[in-house]
């Protein structure tokens, strides 16, 4: 391709960075507010030059309940992901390496379970949780997130497993390896990067899940999205602390998102774009 002229490259660079700046600005602004004092955070005109302070983070972390919510989030997202992969990996393996005639229908059916709008089953889920004592428990939220993300997990693992060349398996088979050994010693190591990205995507989705977190927990099992929502009360005008709490809540997940962005496209589009 011919090299574009210097003037044109400058224009493209400027346009690209301006657009990026606008998109990223709310996060940047929140990040700045997290290091301001409360007075600076609500000042108008806005304070741009200030001595960064860590007092908001100290205040947020000193409230023992922030860590309580944080660990609820960790338990729910990591737990639901581990359970989802444990259930989803064998299924994806079966569909990718030993597809029956119904394999495609099965995959499409799994996808279709994602189409149920959460609010359509809010009432029965709430009542089921109430009757079984699962309201406001980590177990309840964990299982729910597993069910919500299971179709995506199976699909994403399936698209990765499908790309493992089958000759490798044929060779192992001739050497007399049994299916289970193949699975453990060949497929899992080969698919490890795919399994890792799938896990990261499932963690991201569960971490950010807000609808069920807000409606099915009160305090004991409340994860971060529901906790952050409590900053919306009119008297809660603690913008700097809200920003610090938010920054801590989104930090690890945005980093995960950056790590997996390429593979994530596959998972989110059910393999249709890659």
């Amino acid at each position: 391709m011919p090299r574009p002229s210097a003037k044109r490259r400058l224009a493209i660079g400027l346009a690209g960075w301006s657009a990026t700046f606008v998109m990223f600005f709310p996060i940047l602004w929140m990040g700045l507010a997290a290091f301001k004092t409360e007075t600076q955070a609500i000042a108008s005109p806005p304070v741009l030059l200030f001595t960064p302070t860590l007092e908001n983070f100290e205040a947020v972390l000193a409230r023992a309940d922030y860590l309580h919510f944080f660990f609820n989030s960790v338990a729910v997202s990591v737990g639901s992901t581990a359970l989802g992969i444990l259930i989803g990996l064998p299924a994806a393996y079966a569909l990718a390496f030993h597809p029956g005639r119904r394999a495609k229908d099965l995959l499409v059916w799994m996808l279709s379970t994602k189409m149920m709008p959460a609010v359509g089953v809010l009432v029965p889920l709430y009542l089921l949780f109430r009757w079984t004592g699962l309201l406001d428990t980590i177990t309840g939220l964990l299982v729910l997130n597993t069910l919500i993300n299971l179709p995506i997990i199976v699909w994403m693992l399936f698209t990765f497993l499908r790309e493992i060349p089958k000759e490798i398996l044929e060779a192992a088979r001739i050497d007399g390896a049994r299916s289970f050994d193949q699975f453990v010693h060949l497929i899992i190591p080969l698919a490890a990067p795919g399994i890792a990205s799938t896990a990261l995507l499932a963690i991201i989705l569960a971490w950010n899940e807000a609808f069920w977190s807000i409606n099915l927990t009160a305090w004991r099992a409340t994860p971060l999205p529901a906790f952050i929502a409590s900053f919306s009360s009119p008297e809660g005008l603690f913008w700097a602390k809200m920003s610090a709490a938010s920054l801590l809540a989104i930090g690890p997940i945005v980093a995960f998102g950056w790590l997996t962005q390429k593979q994530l496209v596959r998972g989110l589009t059910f393999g249709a774009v890659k």
Partner: protein
Amino acid sequence: MTMASPRTAAAPARGRSAHPGRRPGVNTKPLLAPAVVLLLIWMIVPLAMTLWFSAQRYNLLNPRVSGFAGLRNYRYLMSDPALWTAVGNTILLVGGVLVASIAIGTVMALLLDQRFPGRNLARLLAIAPFFVMPTVSALVWKNLLMHPVNGLFAWIAKLFGLPPVDWFTSWPLFSIGIIVAWQWIPFATLILLTALQSLDQEQMEAALIDGARDGQRLRYVILPHLYRPMTIVAMIETIFLLSIFAEILVTTSGGPGDQSMTLPFLIYKIALLDWDVGGASAGGVFAIILANIVAFFLVRTIAHNLER
């Protein structure tokens, strides 16, 4: 495609599983069963319960109200003007965000596909909003940016001598739309950028050699290539946008009046604020039907993709 030529050598052996020694038959049922059974329960039990409750008189606050209601809940729901406001708002919100996110996402993807200094960093920053949890993005916009007194936008308006806008009172649905669009533009950008990167370089060079100018390349090579990913983005976004909830809860709670009431939020109100199980279930069935109309097309597109 990915299943290209090298496999053909092995194909005959794979095709006939009648070679008992070479290919041990694998019983896939135990591998598939846990996932399938769980999803089956997840699909059927809540749906059956919603359908059942929607035909019941059932209020958690008033245990004396009970019994079969037939279609009364539906009739009551359909005659509630709030439902139609909510449906209208939902369509406006979903439609507006879809158009905005795909249009802006396409521009972003085209820009980020160009070569410029720091492009990789720009890509990371531009898709970051997608990973921000909905309650955080709603609060950041509501307070730090859109607050009518202390917000940044109010200060900018003042700079230009304009009166500050009270966003969530004057333009509630539009303001929520901005927040939601901000979360979903990066999704469209990410998908379309990935699609652009798979665009055949040879095809682009051929177009260049043929003397195609930028506009022509965009129109005849790039946009047709993006058409399918765009439809996929539209459908996946629709599924998620139809259940927008946290952003409304944190900002307007559907108000002022019913101005930013959407279908999910209305059902939530009937269920967990009025405790009317029957009415909320009827609303739930309504929402499920609406989502399935969209889902039908999505599932067909992706199933078609699986065949390629």
